[in-house]
């Protein structure tokens, strides 16, 4: 329980909206959040399938992805496999840099989801129907979490996944 409270307090730091809304009911929220905090570590392998995209900013399914380390990590792997990492790499600049915390089309979950699914220009516009819905949820959760990931941690994770395929290429296991 201690860990979850510490976990939540760290998390609350980077969600300003949560603190202002809590106001006087801080104790109650803290306990509720500490339970949610444990959700961060839950690892439900067979996630129930949200066949539909998120409807609005407060879709109840969002925390199950945005606040779950496993779902974010899965999003990261598909982010690599689907080739998103080719353009949105760690060192990308300008609009391609997903880690700078600036969102041109809005930072809420459903807005980022819509950009990934339908916002890409030209022949990349097919992600909406070429990537299964659950994977879009996971990739969205990963992308929205990127600003919290320090650059050296992201580089370290990219080094670990160097042997993995990216989009249409696979350069072979690093031997």
């Amino acid at each position: 329980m201690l860990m979850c409270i510490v976990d939540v307090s760290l998390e609350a730091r980077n969600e300003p909206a949560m603190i202002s809304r809590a106001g006087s009911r801080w104790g109650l929220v803290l306990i509720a959040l500490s339970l949610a905090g444990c959700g961060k570590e839950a690892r439900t392998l067979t996630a129930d399938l949200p066949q539909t995209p998120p409807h609005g900013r407060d879709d109840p399914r969002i925390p199950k992805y945005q606040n779950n380390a496993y779902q974010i990590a899965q999003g990261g792997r598909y982010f690599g496999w689907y080739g998103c990492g080719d353009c949105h790499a760690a060192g990308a600049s300008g609009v391609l840099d997903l880690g700078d915390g600036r969102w041109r089309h809005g930072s809420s979950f459903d807005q980022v989801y819509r950009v990934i699914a339908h916002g890409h220009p030209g022949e990349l516009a097919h992600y909406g129907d070429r990537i299964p819905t659950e994977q879009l949820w996971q990739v969205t959760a990963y992308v929205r979490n990127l600003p919290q990931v320090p650059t050296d941690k992201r580089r370290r994770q990219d080094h670990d996944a160097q042997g993995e395929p990216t989009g249409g290429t696979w350069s072979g296991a690093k031997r």
Partner: protein
Amino acid sequence: MRRGLAFLLLLGGCAGQQTPLAPGGEQAASLFTLFGLMMAVTSVFYVLVLGFLGWAAWRARGHWSRGAAPVVEPDDVGLSRSLVVWAALIIAGLFLLVGGSFVAERALASARAREALQVSVTGHQWWWRIQYRDPATGAVVETANELHLPVGRTARIELGAADVIHSFWVPNLSGKLDMIPGRANSVDITPRQLGWFRGQCAEFCGAQHAHMAFSVKVDTPAEFAAWLAAQARPAATPADAAAARGQRVVVGGQCAMCHVIRGTAAGGRAGPDLTHIGSRRTLAAGTLVNTRGGMQGWIAHPQAIKPGTMMPPVALDPADADAVSRYLESLK
């Protein structure tokens, strides 16, 4: 010798497709002989130990329950001498076993010098990517979860890992060897017996470590060449309307993001190569028998079959699902 040992160990499925006790390869055969030597030597020592213990207990059978006055520092000249004999016996037994190990090691190492068929196998989280070199064009021929080897010829399997540590193990043919990111391991296999064998990952690699198996078919050299030539060819064009519809769904839909079907626009590299999926014996790395029903089930609900697998569920309406399975089965 094998039947004797099998009987000794009261084995049920020893003649199975995944056991070191039914060697079908040169390497597994020398290890099986070494195992026989080990069983013999260790059984002798165990019988001796139990014998001494039983004898010691039987000698005092008269008064097992009554305590007696203790004897301090009795002279044990006889026992000291027998201790030296016992230690010598152990050392002799060990020399026998260490010698046997070195002989077996040399037998395994001798394959290193032979000209060998180059195959590269890469471990992914929870399936095997297998690549041959097409003898005609030199291009890489990729398949997955099914390894074909020509009988009698040594194959040098280059082992790599794309994500975490796995371990390549076909017990009927040879010992296992780990697949470690950043390390160039290779194992030599010289099959002697035709037929199907089964290999399984032997290093814990995450949620679906239990369902990371692969089939091994030892063919005659002619069969092997025919099989490799078939694998090198691009995918067959769909013969009937249903298969054509299936191809449109696969190539235009979600499958193409992760799978490649040579000869079509599907070019994703994240998942196994499906160019000749129809010719494979199993699906999902040895989890399902390759049938159309199995194929549809795996596409619609992979999490039910392999909970935690990275294969996403692809929701298709029944007609498309049926067409897709017909098309994939047609890719012999």
